[in-house]
């Protein structure tokens, strides 16, 4: 598979545990991550909040560079990055905008490459193949699959799964042999980029999500987003302090769970570097 890898800033920063988990897990499935050269930040929330053109130009640069380097598919494990890339791709559908963006980013943006999130990556590998590769089914796990905002939204940009009642992550988790729960906050927001700047909101939203998962009988959360992981894992202690209750909810990356099922160790997957490790 000639799939380019766009890590994004988070995976090369505080969410490097996610990257390690990905590399270990996908490596065990014979997928090597071919990191594209010269990638830059996608602009994240800040760009689309403050400068619309920039919020298209930054991902457009990345998409154009990836296309220049011949990647027909680009794997962006951070949903914010992949949404931004898809937004640029959608914008490129308008010839006038495509030309303008190409000029701005000094590269020919074609908007033809396919952008994959983590779930799509596993779907590409194949659920059947995953199933047959399972060595240690994580039977003790009852997971609440958490999609957050940008895996499924905005639907006319990302075109992924059902944006109200998604089930693609459950399909993968179930294929590993773990249980999943039906719960209410699959696509609610965790506060995303407000981690630093508006902590109150983040704690409140994270609290709702964590409690709802627990109430529906989950013993862990599964995410496919570094931001969600920060807000639910790193901030969990703060949530517990603010709301005066013990939650102890382990938050796995989807790749963690797949890796465990494939027989990888928690260390190989960096699970030991999470804040909440065991309830």
């Amino acid at each position: 598979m000639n799939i380019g890898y766009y890590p994004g800033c988070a995976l090369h920063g505080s969410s490097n545990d996610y990257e390690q988990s990905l590399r270990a897990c996908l490596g065990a499935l014979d997928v090597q991550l071919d990191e594209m050269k010269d990638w830059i930040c996608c602009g994240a929330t800040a760009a689309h909040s403050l400068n619309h053109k920039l919020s298209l130009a930054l991902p457009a640069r990345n998409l154009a560079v990836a296309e220049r380097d011949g990647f027909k598919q680009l794997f962006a494990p951070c949903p914010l990055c992949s949404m931004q890339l898809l937004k640029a791709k959608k914008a490129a559908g308008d010839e006038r905008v495509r030309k303008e963006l190409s000029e701005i980013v000094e590269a020919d943006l074609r908007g033809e490459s396919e952008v994959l999130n983590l779930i799509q990556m596993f779907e590409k590998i194949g659920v059947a193949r995953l199933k047959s590769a399972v060595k240690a089914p994580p039977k003790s796990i009852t997971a609440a699959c958490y999609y957050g905002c940008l895996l499924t939204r905005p639907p006319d940009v990302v075109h992924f799964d059902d944006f109200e009642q998604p089930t693609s992550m459950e399909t993968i988790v179930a294929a590993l042999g773990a249980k999943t729960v039906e719960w209410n906050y699959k696509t609610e927001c965790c506060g995303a980029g407000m981690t630093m700047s508006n902590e109150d909101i983040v704690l409140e939203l994270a609290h709702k999500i964590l409690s709802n998962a627990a109430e529906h009988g989950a013993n862990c959360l599964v995410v496919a987003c570094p931001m969600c992981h920060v807000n639910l894992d790193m901030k969990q202690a703060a949530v517990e302090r603010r709301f005066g209750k013990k939650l102890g909810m382990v938050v796995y990356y989807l790749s963690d769970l797949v890796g465990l099922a494939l027989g990888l160790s928690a260390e190989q997957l960096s699970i030991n570097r999470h804040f909440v490790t065991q309830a």
Partner: protein
Amino acid sequence: MENQALGQVPSEHLPVHFPSPIQVANCYQCGKCTAGCPVAMHMDVAPNQVVRLAQLGEWEKALRSRAIWECVGCQTCSTRCPKEVDCAGVMDALREASLARGMAAPERFSVVAFQKIFLENIRRNGRLNELELIGHFKLDVVLHTGRIPFLFKDAGLAPQLGKRKKLHLIPGKARDRGVVNRIFERCASERKP
């Protein structure tokens, strides 16, 4: 500021530049955006009211609102809007205009500062330098608010992050930062207030 409602004037004459066909005039004020918004209860003006202000041409009220800085950009409003108004896009456009005119709500200084510092950070580095971001942000907030303790808030996390090898003291930088700079220049807001 001109008091012109959307739908009555061509968009290029509006004080707020809506980049995509957002069709604020389509909104019939059902409030589904407010109903689904995860942070609506913290807003001074509810999301549907923000759109209403845009409909009425009450730009100043909209641009000075706290609400546009509370918005977390989760896209729930746009996704569920029965009239297919891109409410989240309205928020983005208002933020951009608010900042350009220096009207950003002072109570939400930290959000504004964070976004600005974030962009400045990637302009310089091409990729985000988290430590630098945190440092700048904290300093900015403290200088602005005089709340010294903010400097040490979450300080307890640092060793924890370090223990988990999550602090990258020497982060990677993009190779060609010149192009990043030029992209920023070309995208600099063309619309002056």
